[in-house]
């Protein structure tokens, strides 16, 4: 046999072997059935699907033989793949091509070999489907034709596996792309960090239900000349359309609140902008405006089709704040009301999206009883502690995104 010179052609062939990613893959029933059929048809003890690697011949399937691979030099398959067609040795002990081969002259005692190259569509021989016997024998043209057909089946199986692997890889790539888009969009729905605001300890959390599908929850904390605006909202629907609507609503509201201390007036302005955009989207939101007084903090709240913020008093009582007005951006003439509450140090306003309601109380739930039960024992706790408990209630198994902001008066 001798060492093969690894020329340009052989390098290309080895690249093809790598492309099929089959070397050292686990046993596979489909290939084992083919070698079993080949052995039975030829009435020989051994049938092999071999792949010729750089320095070894690896057996994808080895019927009637314990070895999983042999060195490339003594292997007959390495010779068989050099041609285009069947490579048949009827009597190896007298055949000049094989009589000196250690598998023939040595203990193994190989005397018959018929191999068909496993040829790729672009013309590279990866290995062989071969049958082996310890006795010399003749083969008919019909038998060689059958073995050739079986080799084609082996190649079909290998092509199939490569396509399947590629599809899986492509799907993973698409998922990664979708996640990047979702992450980028999501980042536009909330501030990168909560700004420090005077008189308040503010903590926010955002829980994404599915990383590849962006949701429509949004919130913001806006320090202004008149005080601090905090709002939480949710655009109807899911996906990029919802996220785009949520992003627009967040920035529109952020801008309006800079010079509008009355949440209801801000909501009317947001409603007008969104209702005339003609995009068949609406958002819901709760908007709070915090202003520091001489001995308490005043909070003004307006609600547009959104769950009520809950006011957890330092002593453990819970109040709802705000009067529900219509969803924002659908009806052009919607009106909203501002409700006022005075916060003493330690009082906490909790604003959230319906994802928190669902996570705490169940699918389709609009009642906030479950959230009240979580909050009641947390009176006089820090904003971070309250947020941690709400996080725990949200858990990981959700169908909707969930966002909340906890603002504690200092």
């Amino acid at each position, binding site marked *: 046999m001798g060492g093969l010179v690894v020329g340009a052609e052989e390098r290309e062939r080895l690249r093809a072997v790598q492309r099929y990613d089959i070397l050292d893959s686990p046993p596979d029933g489909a290939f084992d059935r083919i070698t079993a059929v080949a052995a039975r048809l030829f009435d020989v003890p051994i049938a092999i699907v071999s792949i010729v690697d750089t320095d070894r011949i690896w057996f994808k399937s080895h019927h009637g033989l314990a070895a999983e691979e042999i060195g490339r030099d003594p292997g007959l398959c390495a010779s068989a793949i050099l041609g285009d067609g069947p490579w048949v040795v009827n009597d190896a002990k007298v055949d000049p091509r094989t009589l000196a081969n250690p598998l023939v002259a040595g203990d193994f005692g190989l005397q018959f070999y018929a191999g068909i190259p496993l040829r790729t569509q672009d013309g590279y021989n990866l290995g062989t489907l071969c049958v082996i016997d310890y006795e010399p024998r003749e083969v008919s043209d019909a038998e060689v034709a059958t073995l050739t057909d079986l080799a084609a089946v082996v190649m079909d199986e290998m092509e199939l596996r490569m396509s399947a692997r590629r599809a899986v890889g492509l799907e993973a790539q698409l998922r990664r792309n979708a996640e990047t888009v979702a992450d980028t969009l999501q980042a536009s729905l909330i501030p990168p960090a909560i700004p420090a605001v005077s008189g308040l300890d503010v903590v926010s959390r955002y829980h994404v239900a599915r990383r590849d599908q962006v949701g429509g929850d949004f919130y913001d904390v806006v320090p202004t000349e008149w005080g601090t605006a905090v709002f939480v909202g949710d655009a109807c*629907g*899911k996906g990029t359309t919802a996220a785009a609507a949520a992003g627009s609503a967040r920035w529109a509201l952020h801008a309006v609140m800079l010079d509008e201390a009355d949440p209801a007036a801000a909501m009317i302005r947001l409603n007008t902008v969104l209702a005339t955009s003609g995009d068949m989207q609406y958002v819901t939101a709760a908007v709070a405006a915090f202003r520091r007084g001489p001995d308490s903090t005043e909070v003004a709240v307006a609600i547009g*089709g959104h769950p009520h913020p809950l006011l957890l008093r330092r002593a453990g009582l819970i109040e709802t704040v705000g009067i*529900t*007005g*219509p*969803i924002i951006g659908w009806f052009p003439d919607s009106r909203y009301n501002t409700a006022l509450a005075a916060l003493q140090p330690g009082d906490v306003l909790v604003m959230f999206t319906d994802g928190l309601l669902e996570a705490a109380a169940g699918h389709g739930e*609009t009642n906030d009883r479950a959230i009240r039960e979580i909050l009641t024992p947390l009176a006089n706790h820090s904003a971070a502690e309250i947020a941690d408990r709400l996080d725990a209630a949200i858990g990981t198994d959700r169908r909707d995104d969930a966002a909340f902001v906890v603002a504690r008066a200092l």
Partner: protein
Amino acid sequence: MTSNLFSFEVQSEKNAARIRVLGEIDMAAEQPLVAATSEVLSSGACASVVLDLTGVSFMDSSGLRGVLRCQQMAQTHAVPFKLVVGDGPVARLFKLAGITGQLEYE
């Protein structure tokens, strides 16, 4: 998450159409609901539409938008559009959305 756990039953009597909506009205159901109502409205002989939502077991924001789009379409066709919501999940969602007073009921 979406489901296909919804169905519509359309009844027409003397040009008065009644669409009974059943099951979970979410993102998967929004477009079919709008299409079903659009078909009823475009049939020409339709003088009024009632959307009966008492058989709805769940509705989310997409489902609500579907109902509002139906209402908007009826308005465009100048066809009276009324709802039946009962006191179940749809009524609660309408209340949360602050739209109970914005729609007409049978």
